[in-house]
Structures are given as structure tokens and as C-alpha cells.
């Protein structure tokens, strides 16, 4: 299973650095993690997701380009079981 970096706190920066070096990484931004810039990771072709609810209430949905997929909790649960979760939330 590929690694899913769950980024949701100030410590999320540590997780993003690991995700950059991990060839099998996907990234899921939640909570204040949606403020972090994961565009460098998305540009390398790795999948980046963000929890839509957390992005919306922060007024950030316009900031995400097509390279970031906005998802709901149901999809989040599917991703969690389809990957190994690397926790930074």
C-alpha cells in the first residue's frame, strides 16, 4: 500500500518534507493543514487531496488548483483504508 500523509497540524510541515522524498506518497490535507502549500508535491505527479469542509470554512477553496482534489469524509475513509496512514495531524 502506498503511504498517505495525513497533514493537519503545525507538525504537518515535517510530514510534507517526508512526502517529498517518498516515491509512493499521497498527501491528504485536513484542519489547519489546508493552509500549507503542497503544490511542489502535486507538481511531481503525487496525488494531493484536501478535506473540502476544512478548506471551505477557511475560505480557501479558490486557492486550490485542479491539481488538488477536494474530498468529503467518506472518501477520506476510503483513502485511509486504501493506504498506510502516515500521521501528522
Amino acid at each position, binding site marked *: 500500500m502506498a503511504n498517505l500523509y495525513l497533514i493537519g497540524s503545525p507538525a504537518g510541515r515535517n510530514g510534507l518534507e517526508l512526502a517529498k522524498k517518498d516515491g509512493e506518497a499521497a498527501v491528504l490535507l485536513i484542519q*489547519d493543514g489546508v493552509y500549507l502549500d503542497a503544490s511542489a508535491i502535486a507538481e511531481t505527479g503525487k496525488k494531493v487531496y484536501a478535506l473540502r469542509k476544512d478548506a471551505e470554512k477557511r475560505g480557501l477553496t479558490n486557492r486550490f488548483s485542479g491539481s488538488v482534489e477536494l474530498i468529503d*469524509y*467518506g472518501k477520506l*475513509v*476510503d483513502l*485511509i*483504508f486504501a493506504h498506510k*496512514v502516515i*500521521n501528522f495531524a
Partner: protein
Amino acid sequence: MATLGMLLTLGPFQFENWDTAASIAEAALDKGHEVRMFLYLDGVYNPIKHQTFPDLSVMPKDRFAALVEKGATIIACGVCVNARGLEKGKDYIDGVKVGGLPDFAEIIGEADALITL
């Protein structure tokens, strides 16, 4: 069907983690998965049953009670509970158990995925 293990180390209100944890657990239960949550450190404040706040229609403890009703297992760290003056969880909502780190070790053993918040 899979088992989702969860570790929650923050309390209600002050930080968003409790809400995220409850929302993820709800979604997992709705999809038919099992949820086993361990409340550690300030996480043990979440299930206090007397929470009341006029601005909120649903209190944090209600969210956790709904998880228990849907079949989630929620266990609080007893050392943390007593340190914070909650006297073995005497004021907890029904269904939340007070245990210890061996319970968390068991959750680790059983979990197909683990989320820490």
C-alpha cells in the same frame, strides 16, 4: 469491513481535533467499518456528560455518544482521567470505558488503519 483505530489527545472546543475525530469515525461507521478509539491526555475531557453551551445545539459529548450507539468502542486512559480530576470517568456518557495503555496496544494490534489526532 475493516477496523479503524483512533488516538485522540486533545479535548473538546479549544482545538479542532475532537470534531475531526468524530466526523471521521461517523463516516467510517456509516460505511460499515469498526471504530476503536483511545482517548489519551486531554482527549479524556471529551465524554463529560454535563457539557452545556447555548450557542451549540450538539455538544461534543453528544457526538461521541452517537458513535457509541453506532457501535464504536471508546476507551479513555485511566491515568489521564484521574490526573485531570475526573474520578474514574464518573461523569462520562454511557458506553465510554476507562482503561489504560494496554487497551491502546490492543487497538494497535487490531487496527487495519490508525489515525492520531
